[in-house]
C-alpha cells in the first residue's frame, strides 16, 4: 500500500524510479488537489534553479506554489545566475539549499538533477535535465489521459512527430508500459524511436507498431500525442528543414479518427497542429498545461509532508 509517507522528503529525478502504484497514488492526489488553494505551504520556500529558460514549466510550478501559499526564490536563466561567474552546480546547490525547503532544478546537462540530489540535504525535483528526463511532464501527460479518457489502462496511444529526440515521448512510452497501453509510433525513418527504447518495449512484451502515415494510425486510437520537431536538437539545419513539417494535424486528418480521440501535445506547438483543431472538444493540449498545476501542487505537498491535510 502506498501512503503519503512514501513521498515525504523524496527526490524526483526520473520517472523510472516510480512504481505503478506510486504513480496511480500521485495521480489520485492530483485530482484531489485540482481545486485546492490556501495556505498549505505557508512559510515554505521553494527554490527554482533554472539554468536554462523554460517559461512554461517554471510558471506552472510557481503558480502551484502560489496557490498553496508558499513562496519561490531563484533565477530563470544561467546568465543571471552564479554559473555565469563560474560557480559549479554543486556549490550553487549547497548555497541555495540553506534558503529553501525544496529545490526545483532545470539544467541543460543530463544527470544534473541526480548530482544535485546527491549534494543537497533537501529534496530535489528534476524539471528537465537536457535530453534526459522531465518527470513532472510525464506525470502531467498521464494525468491528462486519466482526466480526458477516464483511465490509462489499456489505452491505445499514438505518438507522432519527433520520436528520436523527443524526451517527453521517451519517458511517457517507458511509463505506459506499466499500464498495458497499446502503442503506435508515427515518424519518418530518421526520427524513429531510438533502438534502445524499441528493444525495451520488445523485452517487456509491449504491443507496439511503427508507421509513417499519421492518417493510417488514427482509426483505433484513444489518444494522439503530437510532438514538435525541435530545431535545437539538430546539428544540421538542413536536416531540420527536411523534417520540421513532417506531420500536420488538421480537421481533414482527424476525419480518420474516432470522435473521442484525445489530442495531447507538450507545447509549445509550431505548425504540427493546425489552429482549426483548437475548437475540437477533445483538443486537450491547453487543459494539459493547466492540469500541470494540479499535479505539481499535489507532488510538492506530498514531498513537503503537507498532503495529508487534503487527501481523503
Amino acid at each position, binding site marked *: 500500500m502506498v501512503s503519503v509517507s512514501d513521498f515525504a522528503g523524496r527526490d524526483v529525478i526520473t520517472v523510472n524510479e516510480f512504481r505503478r502504484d506510486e504513480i496511480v497514488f500521485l495521480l489520485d492526489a492530483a485530482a484531489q488537489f485540482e481545486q485546492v488553494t490556501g495556505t498549505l505551504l505557508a512559510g515554505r520556500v521553494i527554490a527554482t534553479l533554472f539554468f536554462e529558460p523554460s517559461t512554461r514549466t517554471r510558471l506552472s510550478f510557481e503558480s502551484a506554489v502560489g496557490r498553496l501559499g508558499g513562496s519561490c526564490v531563484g533565477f530563470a536563466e544561467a546568465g543571471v545566475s552564479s554559473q555565469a561567474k563560474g560557480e559549479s552546480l554543486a556549490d550553487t546547490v549547497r548555497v541555495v539549499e540553506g534558503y529553501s525547503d525544496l529545490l526545483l532544478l532545470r539544467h541543460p546537462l543530463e544527470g544534473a538533477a541526480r*548530482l544535485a540530489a546527491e549534494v543537497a540535504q533537501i529534496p530535489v525535483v528534476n524539471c528537465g535535465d537536457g535530453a534526459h528526463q522531465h518527470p513532472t511532464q510525464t506525470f502531467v501527460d498521464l494525468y491528462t489521459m486519466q482526466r480526458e479518457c477516464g483511465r490509462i489502462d489499456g489505452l491505445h496511444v499514438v505518438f507522432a512527430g519527433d520520436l528520436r529526440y523527443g524526451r517527453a515521448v521517451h519517458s511517457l512510452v517507458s511509463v505506459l508500459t506499466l499500464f498495458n497501453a497499446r502503442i503506435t509510433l508515427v515518424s519518418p525513418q530518421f526520427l524513429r524511436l531510438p533502438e534502445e527504447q524499441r528493444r525495451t518495449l520488445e523485452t517487456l512484451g509491449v504491443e507496439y507498431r511503427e508507421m509513417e502515415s499519421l492518417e493510417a494510425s488514427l482509426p483505433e486510437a484513444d489518444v494522439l500525442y503530437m510532438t514538435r520537431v525541435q530545431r535545437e536538437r539538430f546539428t544540421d539545419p538542413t536536416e531540420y528543414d527536411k523534417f520540421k513539417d513532417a506531420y500536420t494535424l488538421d480537421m481533414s486528418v482527424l476525419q480518420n479518427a474516432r470522435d473521442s480521440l484525445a489530442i495531447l501535445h507538450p507545447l509549445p506547438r509550431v505548425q504540427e497542429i493546425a489552429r482549426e483543431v483548437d475548437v475540437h472538444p477533445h483538443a486537450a493540449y491547453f487543459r494539459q498545461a493547466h492540469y500541470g498545476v494540479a499535479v505539481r501542487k499535489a507532488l510538492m505537498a506530498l514531498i513537503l509532508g503537507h498532503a495529508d491535510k487534503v487527501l481523503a
Partner: protein
Amino acid sequence: MSETYLVNKLRDGSVLDHLRAGTALRALGALNLPPERTISVGIYLKSGRLERKDIIKIDSHQLTEEDAAKIALISPHATLSLIRNFKVVNKIELHPPLRFRGLIRCPNHACITRAESVRGSWLVMEREPVSVKCEYCDRTVPSDLFRFG
C-alpha cells in the same frame, strides 16, 4: 607451445593471463605503468584445443587494485598473478562488479559528469562482454567505447 614466446620467467612482476583474445593492447593502454619496464605481450596464443587468449607480463611492477578493476571490465575472467621472487604470491580471477565509481569517463558530452568534478557512477548491465550504464545520464556504454582515466 603457447608460452614459447616468453623471454624468461619473471622474478618480480605481474602477469595478466587468459585475457580475451585480441584485448591485450586495449588492456595495456588502460594500465597505469611506470616508465622503462620490460613488458611482454602475447596475442592470439593457443590456449587449449580450440581457444585463443592474450597474455601480458610486466617486469618489476605490481599492478594495483584499480588496474585489476579496469581489466575486469575489458576482459572478464582474466587472471592477475603477482609475482615476488619467482613465486606467485597472489592470483585472482577478475570479474566486473555490479556497480562501481570512477574508472571510466562518460562518453556523453552532455553528461553532467563531464562538466562538474564528480566521479562517474556505473551500473553493470551486461557481463560478457561488459556494458555499463551511467547513473547520471543513463547512457549505456559498451566495453569497446570505454575511455579510462
